[in-house]
């Protein structure tokens, strides 16, 4: 039982790491970014190239992940300039398709550079094996993921709630017009938010790399789960995404125990249920 819960939390926090960036960009630009999963994947591939298939140490992995975050963040700025900025006033369907196109290009580039073979990376020495927590075996890497997830959440919360920049971003996501009126340089702040969002995707890719099978479809799996998370949590809400990630992780864990022959269905059923019953999510603001 405890084992199952820890597994669920690991899934939940892994998804949260990806979903955080997705909900951030939605909050600021009102864009549901299909390319987010692809950039997550790019981050993972970048880190795998930097550290090889057997990373020397946890520190090296973390450093590589941060570097990847930086690079992917820069890509994000390019995407923002070339694509997102131009479609942000268009119909939302067109925004979806535009980011879908970016995703296709990303997948193509990944295939071109890293090929089609599956690649797997083992955890670095510090994160191998596991500990006995009472009667159950807990993989160290699970703990690492959970810690990363919670840390990322606390850090984001702190930044958004307490820091000046965070307050600006929050204000802007609430009401773009008012933000402009108050003299905020909205385009610049949008760049900042988009950069951060993509950087988060890249970071997540790096951190979650070990124990992952790298392939060009990696992005898809995480993308759908993240969509579910941010919708259940309420679009644009980091706190909601965190709660939703835990909830969906638990649903998935329960699914794995109760219906082991159809894994993964629970999350979608949960998502459908939420969309119909509480379309604004756990913590979503009322739609106008």
């Amino acid at each position, binding site marked *: 039982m405890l084992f199952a819960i820890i597994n669920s939390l690991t899934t939940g926090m892994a998804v949260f790491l990806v979903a955080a960036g997705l909900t951030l960009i939605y909050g600021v630009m009102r864009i549901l970014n299909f390319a987010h999963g692809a950039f997550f994947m790019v981050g993972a591939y970048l880190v795998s190239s930097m550290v090889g298939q057997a990373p020397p140490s946890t520190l090296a992995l973390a450093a590589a992940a941060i570097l990847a975050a930086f690079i992917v963040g820069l890509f994000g700025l390019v995407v923002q300039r070339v694509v997102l900025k131009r479609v942000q006033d268009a119909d*939302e369907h067109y925004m979806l398709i535009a980011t879908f196109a970016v995703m296709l290009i990303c997948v193509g580039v990944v*295939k071109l550079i890293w090929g089609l073979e599956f690649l797997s990376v083992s955890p670095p020495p510090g994160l191998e094996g596991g500990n006995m927590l009472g009667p159950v075996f807990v993989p160290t890497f699970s703990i690492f993921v959970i810690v990363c997830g919670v840390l990322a959440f606390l850090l984001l919360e702190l930044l958004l709630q307490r820091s000046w920049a965070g307050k600006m971003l929050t204000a802007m996501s609430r009401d773009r017009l008012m933000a402009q009126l108050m003299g905020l340089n909205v385009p610049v702040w949008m760049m900042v938010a988009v950069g951060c969002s993509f950087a988060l995707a890249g970071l997540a890719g790096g951190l979650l790399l070990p124990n992952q099978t790298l392939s060009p479809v990696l992005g898809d799996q995480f993308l759908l789960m993240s969509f579910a998370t941010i919708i259940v949590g309420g679009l644009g809400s980091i706190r909601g995404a965190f709660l939703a990630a835990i909830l969906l992780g638990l649903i998935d864990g329960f699914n794995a125990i109760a219906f082991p022959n159809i894994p993964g269905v629970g999350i979608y059923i949960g998502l*459908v249920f939420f969309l119909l019953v509480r379309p604004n999510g756990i913590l979503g603001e009322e739609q106008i």
Partner: protein
Amino acid sequence: MNPAIKATLLVLSALVLLALPLWVNPGLLHLVGVTIVMGVFAVAWNLLFGYAGLASFGSGGLFSIGAYFMAVMLRAGWQDGFLLLILVSMAAGGLVAFLVGAIALRRSSGIYLAILTLALSEVLRLFLMRWHWIGAEDGLPNIVRPSFSIGIARVDLSNGHSYYWFLCLACAAMVAIMWWILHSPLGRTLRAIRLDPERTAFMGVNVYGYKLAAFTLSGIFAAGAGALYAPWAQIVTPDLGNMTRSVQPILYTLLGGASSFWGPLIGAFSFSAIEYATRTLVGIQEIITGAILLVIILVFPTGIAGAFSRFVGALMPSEPSSRHGSSVASAVRTETP
């Protein structure tokens, strides 16, 4: 565009398609067949998007309902009722779409509807992947092309190119029916709903009912396309309903142009041509596809059909040429708050 030019183009392309088996190799013919089916699938999707203003990201699920139904029945030896099977699979798709729409359209629209339909088709796909009597992950192979009798005549679609010609005819019939529906008062009302649902409601139109009708019709024809696909490909797999498949009709429609009835078909063929030309280049294919899509959205939001009719309009000054806006802002429909 001038109706005479349109009709000529239509007849010409139909003749080319029908004559195709006489000179192209089997591999390419197979691709063309798939493209025709996908074109019909895309027209069915655009019935929802271009006419009722609703975007579904789960149409792949409906396609696979039709395909699986047909595959199971044909493997069970129900060849004789092939024509009936097509109708029944369409009815099945319509029923599922109706049930989903009846609940979903009350509660959600826009992004939420997109994600809701995406999630539902994923649920279906996961079930198909685990269900052993329909082949689980491997799907159902060796689907026979049927032979059956109508009245006294016997139709054998199993040899030569006969199934290809049947496919062409059946798809033409479906496209014709959709054209008909969309040019009837129903189609006009749907267009009005897409442009301004509130205004339409104030004309006493039950907007929800019309949207549900469009949703159901789209499901019927998506499943119909799936049903025709199964004997052509001779194998069905759960991947028929995955996200990439659901997005295909969207790509075709935008490439061809959502504001034109024929846009999705034009898009399907253009897309296949690109894929065929880049089939040996791993990775490049996605990049080219993505880049084309981006260019279309950023530069020609009315798609190929829009660009073409503007081109023709420019050649013939007597035609009003300002039918289609050129900038994203004017052509892309922004929803009114």
